[in-house]
């Protein structure tokens, strides 16, 4: 039951929304589309669903070319960021509607709906209208409707984005359980790297209408193919700078340099881009050593268990993310240490050369 996009392009007028994309989704677990707003996630989902026709290219499902086949004919279901339910149907009828259209027998519908409602904790609300429910319950209703038929392809377009924090965490924990034991391909679009890591499965990083990398989520996180993929998959944003390698040392500027880690000593001398995730830069003394950085603190965000410090380093704004409370006053010059063996080294063009 694999979904495959072959050379899919989506243009509208002079704008290209999706550049040529080839993608074979994994059959098990979640396929996560990770990218910022307007990176093309929703367009890609609509093409996968059959709601939009690609300008060129083909969509294959389960070894069959389904390009141009009506969405009603495909066995898909979809959940949106907004809570979309049929406003004048009760929750029960909302969940039952895909089965009603399919012409199932009413006792079978009843038992199916009851089972799904139970799974999503909607049983007490079945006779209410969606407008009488909380946001979380409305989205649960939408999810229930997506799950009630055994869809081959389930598309989730930022389903948790409009929920408040607590509900989001709760539902995110439940999601993988809901799909466990089902034979279907799940595609999950999100803007949050953390969500991708928590849900696991496979991840495709999207940037301005291009899929920059696709593979198992942890693999993509650990070994980004290029600087763009690394930035898409980093929150807070990845720190970047241009460095020069001379001999076996990297020089960021006159004052800051470090010995190239073993894996990077083989690189030719010259100019490179480095990318280093914020949690590999911590206040001096808080980590395991590494290159020393000195910068002027611009913003400090304390979340209780974590400190995020934005500081000015030369003409770059870098971010440090560390455990515990590390309060810094704005304007203060603070010292940080960078775990240089975790830095990714990219060529000037952004291709990874060492990680």
């Amino acid at each position: 039951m694999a979904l495959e996009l072959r050379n899919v392009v989506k243009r509208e007028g002079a704008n290209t929304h999706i550049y040529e994309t080839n993608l074979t989704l994994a059959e098990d677990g979640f396929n996560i589309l990770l990218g910022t707003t307007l990176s093309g996630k929703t367009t890609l989902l609509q093409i996968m669903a059959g709601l939009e026709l690609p300008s060129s290219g083909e969509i294959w499902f389960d070894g069959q070319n389904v390009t141009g086949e009506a969405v009603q004919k495909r066995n898909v279901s979809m959940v949106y960021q907004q809570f979309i339910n049929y406003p004048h149907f009760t929750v029960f009828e909302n969940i039952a509607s895909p089965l009603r259209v399919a012409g199932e027998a009413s006792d079978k519908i009843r038992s199916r709906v009851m089972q799904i409602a139970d799974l999503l904790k909607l049983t007490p609300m079945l006779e209410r209208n969606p407008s009488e429910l909380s946001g979380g319950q409305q989205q649960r209703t939408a999810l229930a409707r997506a799950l009630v038929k055994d869809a081959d392809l389930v598309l989730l377009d930022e389903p948790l984005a409009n929920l408040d924090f607590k509900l989001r965490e709760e539902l995110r924990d439940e999601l993988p359980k809901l799909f466990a034991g089902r034979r279907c391909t799940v595609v999950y679009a999100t803007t949050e790297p953390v969500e991708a890591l928590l849900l696991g499965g496979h991840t495709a990083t999207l940037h301005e209408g291009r899929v920059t990398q696709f593979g198992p989520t942890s693999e993509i996180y650990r070994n980004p193919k290029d600087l763009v993929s690394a930035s898409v998959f980093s929150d807070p944003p990845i720190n970047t700078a241009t460095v020069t390698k001379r001999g076996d040392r990297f020089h960021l500027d006159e004052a800051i340099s470090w010995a190239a880690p073993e894996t990077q000593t083989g690189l030719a001398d010259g100019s490179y881009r480095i990318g280093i995730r914020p949690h590999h830069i911590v206040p001096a003394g808080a980590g395991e050593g590494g290159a020393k950085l000195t910068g002027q603190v611009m913003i400090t965000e304390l979340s209780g268990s974590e400190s995020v410090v934005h500081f000015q380093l030369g003409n770059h704004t870098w971010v440090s993310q560390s455990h515990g409370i590390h309060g810094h006053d704005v304007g203060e010059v603070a010292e940080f240490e960078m775990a240089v063996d975790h830095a990714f080294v990219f060529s000037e063009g952004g291709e990874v050369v060492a990680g």
Partner: protein
Amino acid sequence: MTRYKWLVPALYIIFLMLPIYWLLNMSFKTTNEILGSFTLFPAEFTLDNYRKIFTDSTWYMGYVNSLTYVVINTVISVTVALPAAYAFSRYRFVGDKHLFFWLLTNRMAPPAVFALPFFQLYSAVGLFDTHIAVALAHCLFNIPLAVWILEGFMSGVPKELDETAYVDGYPFWRFFIKIFLPTIAAGIGVAAFFCFMFSWVELLLAKTLTSVEAKPIAATMTRTASTSGYELGLLAAAGTLTIIPGAFVIYFVRNYIAKGFALGRV
């Protein structure tokens, strides 16, 4: 000062209500009393005027004719406007914005402009003096209005609702009738109300396109003198009855009327 803050609204309301009160007052008087003296209340309370209207077919048929073409017009206008408004709200096509604006410009010409061509055309095809003739003529004004109102209400419904229904397996028409129409029921009500009102109060085309068979009540009413001289009490009673259908219909859409005046865009 604050003791008299009720004064201005009270005066305003009296000012507004006075003509309606006077109409009602007159409808319960005899014509002699109306012409003979100035009285705030009917001295000789009579229901004769109303009795006459409900028994004399030249009078009550006026209401039947008016209601007939108004209802036909409302049904046609809303039915035709629904798919048009859906297209304007959901699809992009060449010239869509121009066409949409052009629709509204149909409302900008005075009905008198169209009286002559309609009269000639309907006479030629044998539609003169029929209910359908007036109903069709009023469509010229009401369909654009209904399209604008419905488009506003439809654009307030996220297109994801449509997509969800397609994904669930609904064919287009089944989705449109079973899910979409109930979702915008308030908008349909408001559009129907506006069509009803405009068609109900429109006099010029209705009068021009009819003579006997489909003569509207407003035409009957403007016939001020008859064989028995001036019948002011009777005319007042007819006027009072003319207000009732509008008041009746407005009751059902009272919560949405403001949105309707904003053409559904609030």
